[in-house]
């Protein structure tokens, strides 16, 4: 626990800073609440409806593919760190197989028109 104490302190400091500054700013000036002021901004028009609607996320398939490739990228880190210490021919051959499989998936997604805005 002691090893990672400074990370914990940094998290606490990073939270305390905005909380402290916003509290300080809030205590320095008065507050005059007003319904018109608190209405959400819609370029001066009277706001209508709710913004939390069922929103079509045109890129949700991107998000799924992103997840896959992000995990693949994590697999590359240990290989990259150890690359100079491995038998390089074998290590390189293995990563070529891995990356080519990755690229086949990527190319398939591209040809299936997944990588386009919907």
């Amino acid at each position, binding site marked *: 626990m002691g090893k990672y*104490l*400074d*990370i914990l*302190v*940094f*998290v*606490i*400091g*990073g*939270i305390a*800073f*905005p*909380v402290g*500054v*916003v509290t*300080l*700013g*809030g205590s320095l*000036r008065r*507050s*005059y*609440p007003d*319904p018109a002021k*608190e*209405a*959400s*901004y*819609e*370029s001066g028009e009277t*706001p209508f409806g709710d*913004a*939390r609607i069922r*929103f079509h*996320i045109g*890129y949700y398939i*991107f*998000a799924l*593919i*992103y997840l896959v*490739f*992000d995990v693949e*990228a994590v697999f*590359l*880190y240990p290989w*990259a*760190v150890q*690359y*100079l*210490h491995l038998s390089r*021919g074998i*290590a390189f051959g293995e*990563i*070529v197989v891995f*990356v080519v499989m*990755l*690229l086949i998936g990527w190319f398939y997604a*591209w040809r299936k028109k997944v*990588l*386009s*805005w919907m």
Partner: protein
Amino acid sequence: MNILLAAILKVIGVLMFVGLNAYILIWGERKVSGHIQRRIGPIRVGGPSGIMQSAADILKLMSKEDFVPSGADWWLWVLAPVVSVAPAVLVYLVLPIGRTLVLRNLNVGLVFFSSVSSFTLLGIFMAGWGSNNKYSLLGAMRAGAQLFSYEIPLILSTIGVVMLAGSLTLQRIVAAQTHYGWFIFPQIVGFIVFFVASVAELNRTPFDLAEAESELVAGYFTEYSGMRWAMFAIAEYSNLFTLSALGVTLFLGGWHGPLLPGWVWFVLKSYFLVFVGIWIRWTLPRVRIDQLMDLGWKFLFPVSVLNLLGTGLYLMVR
């Protein structure tokens, strides 16, 4: 107890730097943009070249009312600035400032950096969804689309450097550049991909789709004012510095340099990359979101994969 005291001193030092950095960059960005666009920028507020402009800004923001909009989701809305600032402070831990000067020499420094800095999106999304404002919602959704496009090239472009250095410790990566020379020369492709992706990560023009002023008013922070808004600005400028510093660490030799002490070189190079970022921001127009996604997936991603394979081949035959 001593460890705790040292950690508290470190975090206070970093917070002071975050404040100073925001002060300098708010003024510097206006100054540079003014000169680039053949204007003058701030000149009137105190001191030479309007150096007190940021102080006036702070006073204004301090005295400005920040209210919670009536439709907002209170917890999400109030916590969003905190979630934006906290990771911006946390990443300073692993930056190798000098030859022996690093706040915490984590053995997974690079992974720590990229994972913590991704939290910024969470803050953006909380702000966008919590505001109950249509502009904010669109900004937050765009920020998501943007992350899916640049994050993978950003990670893959750093792997070439990791292969050359054989370590994820940022301090060791800089030390490895002693006998290799700066990694920008063998990794020029990686550096270009990294730089483009980091401009997208910072939500700055030409990739500032999440806050596009001319389309979405201010995007995800439309409803914020006063000090809460200032927190987003501080986080943005802090991230601008830390991501430039990461670029310096990985590609531009970190604290290496003649004559001056190491930390001076580190700061100078970092602010040089910051300057290039500001330069790009005030020179290029904004792209469309589908153009950004095309750039990320159909250009930067294959290029960074090829760079990875090329580095492997180079190290094998060398």
